[in-house]
């Protein structure tokens, strides 16, 4: 349990959370935002595994994508709520 919480927190404070949110804020399209966030999640897991997909833990990947998607959607919500363009 703590392990999963730690992974989630690590992802929120790392690329998926921060960059995902930033990318999400660049679009008003929910699908685009979610995909951008998910892509960041995949990219981060890949980079931190030393560019070796064999070493990627499926659970880590899932959490990274999940956090990325949510961050992207939150970013999109900020855009819709906070900007007229």
């Amino acid at each position, binding site marked *: 349990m703590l392990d999963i919480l730690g992974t989630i927190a690590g992802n929120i404070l790392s690329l998926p959370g*921060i960059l995902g949110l*930033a990318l999400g804020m660049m679009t008003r399209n929910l699908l685009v935002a979610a995909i951008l966030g998910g892509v960041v999640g995949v990219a981060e897991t890949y980079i931190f595994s030393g560019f070796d997909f064999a070493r990627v833990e499926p659970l880590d990947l899932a959490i990274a994508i999940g956090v990325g998607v949510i961050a992207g959607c939150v970013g999109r919500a900020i855009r819709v709520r906070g*900007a*007229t*363009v």
Partner: protein
Amino acid sequence: MANNDSNEKRPGFIRRIWNGFWSPSGVLSLGFLLIAGFLGGVMAWGGFHWALEETNTEEFCISCHSMTKNWDEYTDTIHYNNHSGVRATCPDCHVPHEWQYKVKAKIMASKDLYHEIIGTIDTDEKYEDHRLKMATAVWTKMKKTDSRECRNCHSFEYMDFTIQETRAAADHQKALDEGKTCIDCHQGIAHGLPTGYLERYETVAEGLEAAK
């Protein structure tokens, strides 16, 4: 707004950017701007920090031809190869940890780049000719800071003098009593020493003493 038929002269490109930058935004809310600024700040700082750490690795130091001679000498010493497998790398001894000193060291190291380009020490002969001068710079720094970088790992307080060899224990006790610092006795701990190093070191120490 887009009233281009007024005969007022259109400001130049830079002027327009400048004006735009300082005008209130009509389309973005304060909250949006704050969050965007915060995220941008986190990413800029993270990237900066990452770059700084990348230039604080041994691989980076010896990526320069000029630094490979030090590497060769250092790999024969205790800080590279010892019974416990704990190492001190180039930045451990040459780059301070404390933020303000670290940034200063990084900025001063830009002269390394200049000397690399003009080839100040690109052959062994040139290196030897230049060594005393470079070593003097390092000694001055270490003496001034009470060997701060050594003390990131070593400390008199935690040395068990009873298991040190007699000469070491005696000298370390003396060092404590007389307020001496590591580099006063341990020159050449990681690299070869130039001839005349003792005289030069004394001049450095006396110079700093006199300046106090």
